């Protein structure tokens, strides 16, 4: 136990446990027969939802570091992104194989009539090069372009949230239906993206440092007086 905590930080352990949890739960439910009456739809939704969550978490690392100066978060981005890609891949395979039984005529027809699928497909295709180039060797090889390429995630995440939101029965414009969850996801993503704008980030950093400075001063005063 001690060695585990020596080798891995608590954050790292929490991340890996969270990432694998859904797959473990689904395999467990498969054996206990708890994949609901409609296992295909259930598997599609669980894997898709987890991919969205992991992708949003990977997007959260940078702004949370800006806020709390917790640089370890930056080291976790890659694994979160790769886990998201893994679940997205499982999600796509379930759709093609279990849901549609590889009946390509049905699948193609479905794509012509379903904007959700187009959006999801674009997001998935864009994820492939990011996953492929996520290793250090590619980072070196691509140099400056690596960062440019990986900025594609700023487009991918909104597409994925749209893909997710469109599955719900609701209407944002009349504020009716099943819209609370996609709305929350959308807001979080917007906040995380806005916090990356250089001016905003600088503003946050200066406020953060001022608060930290005051806190330190107070603590120093407290220590002196006691």
């Amino acid at each position: 136990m001690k060695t585990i905590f020596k080798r891995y930080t608590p954050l790292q352990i929490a991340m890996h446990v969270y990432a694998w949890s859904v797959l473990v739960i689904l395999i467990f439910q498969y054996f206990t027969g708890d994949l609901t009456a409609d296992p295909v739809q259930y598997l599609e939704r669980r894997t898709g939802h987890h991919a969205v969550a992991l992708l949003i978490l990977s997007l959260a690392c940078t702004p949370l570091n800006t806020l709390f100066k917790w640089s370890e978060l930056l080291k976790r981005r890659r694994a979160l992104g790769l886990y998201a890609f893994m679940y997205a891949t499982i999600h796509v395979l379930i759709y093609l194989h279990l849901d549609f039984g590889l009946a390509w005529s049905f699948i193609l027809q479905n794509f012509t009539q379903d904007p959700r699928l187009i959006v999801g497909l674009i997001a998935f295709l864009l994820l492939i090069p990011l996953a492929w180039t996520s290793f250090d060797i590619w980072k070196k090889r691509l140099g400056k372009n690596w960062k440019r390429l990986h900025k594609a995630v700023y487009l991918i995440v909104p597409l994925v949230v749209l893909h997710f939101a469109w599955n719900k029965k609701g209407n944002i414009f009349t504020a009716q239906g099943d819209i609370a969850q996609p709305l929350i996801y959308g807001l979080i993503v917007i906040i995380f993206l806005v916090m990356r704008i250089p001016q905003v980030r600088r503003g946050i950093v200066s406020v953060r440092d001022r608060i930290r400075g005051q806190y330190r001063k107070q603590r120093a005063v407290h220590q002196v007086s006691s």
Partner: protein
Amino acid sequence: MTDKFKSVPIKSSEITPYSQYISRRDFLKAAGIVTGSALLAACAPQATGTAVPEGEAPVVPSGSYTDELGDPANSFKDITNYNNYYEFTTDKEGVAPLSKDFNSKPWTVEVYGMVNNPKTYGIEDLLSRFTQEERIYRLRCVEAWSMVIPWTGFTLASLLKEVEPTSDAKYVRFEAVYRPEEMPGQKSPFYPWPYQEGLRIDEAMNDLAILATGLYGQPMPNPNGAPIRLVVPWKYGFKSIKAITKIELTDKQPETLWSSVSPNEYGFYSNVNPDRPHPRWSQATERRVGELGRRPTLMFNGYAEQVADLYAGMDLSVYY
């Protein structure tokens, strides 16, 4: 004509292709959904296809029920544990536990409006007054999944004949129970509760339209709309309103819950139509719950022979 929809004393295993008859568990296994599961599966507990909510025992195994196309009915367990019933929750598996304590007794259904004999029926009156018959219908959800369900109930026409709609009555409006203290989903501000639905009067008089009071020979389970619900099998499932308390005859096309939430997606008619995609997804295929792969969706859910006349001359892409 109704005979077609009654159960026939033939075992479905004799007339249904084996592939559709084996349990979905075996299906998933066959599809190799979990790699390397074969070894482990031998030690896993066997799935029980007939388990039911507490306190209720299945009278007849699902295998002896088939629809008129020869497809087996879904199990009692699947039918009662996988429900779209937003009055409780939007989570289909969450409806059964949340509706466990719903109180469907006593219950009355008020029939009023443009009728000569307005009347409030107790649920017992409805059960004893009208001949209860069995109808095995396909249910096609607008989300593109489907089930086969053996309902018991009586024709809506027989009720309407008794209250005698006046010649002004053109539509039937249905209203469901409103009890936010028992139905947590009704606390959601995002839906215009109570649930409402409507039919044109000639649709309502069609022999396929029934008020269902049970399924698998049992009183209607709570997750399926106890104690009484509409079943109009040629329309998407959401038209078949659950837990009805009011039936009004009117000359105006009624508001319906889903068409007020999103009018361009859920129209008043909402007939099952593979050629008219939902704005966000295709309706050309469906997954029969318990099967892998897809089936092509049938026009009017396979009931065109009985109902197509109702829409003669109407452009179904406009009146969706």
